């Protein structure tokens, strides 16, 4: 079975390490926070100016002056800090954030990413995504392998306006976990009970099946 969005988040959470400062994008990436291993010290950065973001508040704690990058009400954990948007992106561009997880509409076999605009249709803006992909070394893209029309999102080249050039090295989809190198998607883990044929059928970009292909552990 292909993974659901929760299982994708669960798999990505395995890449967290003790002491990491992590930025989680909107959508599936946000769910990664639910699977931080017990006892592991991970600090979440919210690009609107918060380090040490906690869970959603209970009704009595709701504070309009405390939101995350998705404009949702949140809480602060002990040791949290607050800062301006300029400081926040200094942390991001200055490579002080250890891991970034974000969504995408298209990924290319050379590591290009597109996730901010569909010309003539959707003009929401890039928000902080271009800054995150331009400067962070350690990025994981979390997304479904295909779009709602069933078309592959792993492509030879992006068709949508780019968010960043040759900056993505790891992708986790509902079908597998990929490393991008040497101009190809290298499938290193496959979702449980998914056939390699399905991965091949749903990958338009160059695909290499790793010699050490493993079944994903969740």
């Amino acid at each position: 079975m292909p993974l659901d969005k929760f299982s994708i988040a669960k798999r990505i959470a395995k890449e967290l390490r003790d002491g990491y400062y992590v930025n989680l994008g909107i959508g599936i990436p946000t769910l990664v926070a639910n699977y931080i291993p017990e006892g592991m010290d991970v600090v979440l950065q919210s690009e609107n100016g918060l380090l040490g973001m906690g869970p959603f508040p209970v009704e009595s704690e709701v504070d309009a002056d405390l939101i995350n990058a998705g404009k949702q009400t949140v809480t602060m954990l002990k040791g949290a800090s607050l800062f301006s948007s300029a400081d926040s992106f200094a942390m991001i561009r200055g490579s002080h954030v250890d891991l970034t997880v974000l969504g995408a509409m298209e990924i290319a076999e050379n590591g290009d990413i597109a996730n901010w605009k569909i010309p003539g249709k959707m003009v929401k803006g890039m928000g902080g995504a271009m800054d995150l992909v331009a400067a962070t070394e350690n990025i994981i893209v979390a997304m479904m392998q295909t779009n709602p029309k069933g078309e592959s999102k792993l492509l030879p080249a992006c068709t949508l306006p780019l968010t960043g050039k040759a900056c993505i090295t790891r992708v986790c989809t509902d079908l597998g976990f990929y490393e991008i190198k040497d101009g190809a998607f290298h499938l290193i883990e496959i979702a449980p009970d998914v056939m390699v044929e399905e991965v091949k059928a749903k990958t338009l970009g160059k695909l290499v099946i790793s010699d050490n292909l493993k079944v994903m552990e969740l």
Partner: protein
Amino acid sequence: MNKVVKNADEAVKDIPNGATLMLGGFGLCGIPENGIAALIRKGVTGLTCISNNAGVDDFGIGLMLKTRQVKRMISSYVGENAEFERQLLSGELEVELIPQGTLAERVRAGGAGIPAFFTPTGYGTEVAEGKETREIGGKMYVLEKWLKADFALVKAWKGDTMGNLIYKGTARNFNPMMATAGKIVIAEVEELVEPGELDPNQIHTPGIYVSRIFKGENYEKRIEQRTVTKS
């Protein structure tokens, strides 16, 4: 050094048609609610608004879009506003979308007297089109220029009559940089106190940057995404 004005209407009374404004806030968090309401009452038009977002249909800058007071928006993300999208796709509204970190830094640079800087953000994308690029230490960077405004409208939690400001929570966001990058900086605060009542160690925006300050009224502080956990 008393910078207090009576209210929002007095604070914005000399903002002319066609002015370039900066407005603090991220989403609806930390926006100058009183200043926006006064701009609508005043009916000033042809505005260029520099703000991370454009409000929602019936709150924040969205209210000024409805009244067609905005000619041009400079933002990083405008996804929560159907009227905005309609005006944009029909060509009634000009929009420049800028990466969020580049927007924050361009405003900071404007206030700090740095006319331009190189950033890795946007290299190889349409954001970099027409801009100077340069290789520094083996990596490519894009030259981005400072942003300044005729007026900046910021919102703080507490302020004193000399214009010193303290922000609360994530309502800080773009406010501190915008408070440095307007020719005239208008601060609205929830609590206005006398000099000496704020701890100098805690001041986020020193009063030198602020031109006018007033105590705002009836803050709605609307929440875009009210998310709660059951206790």
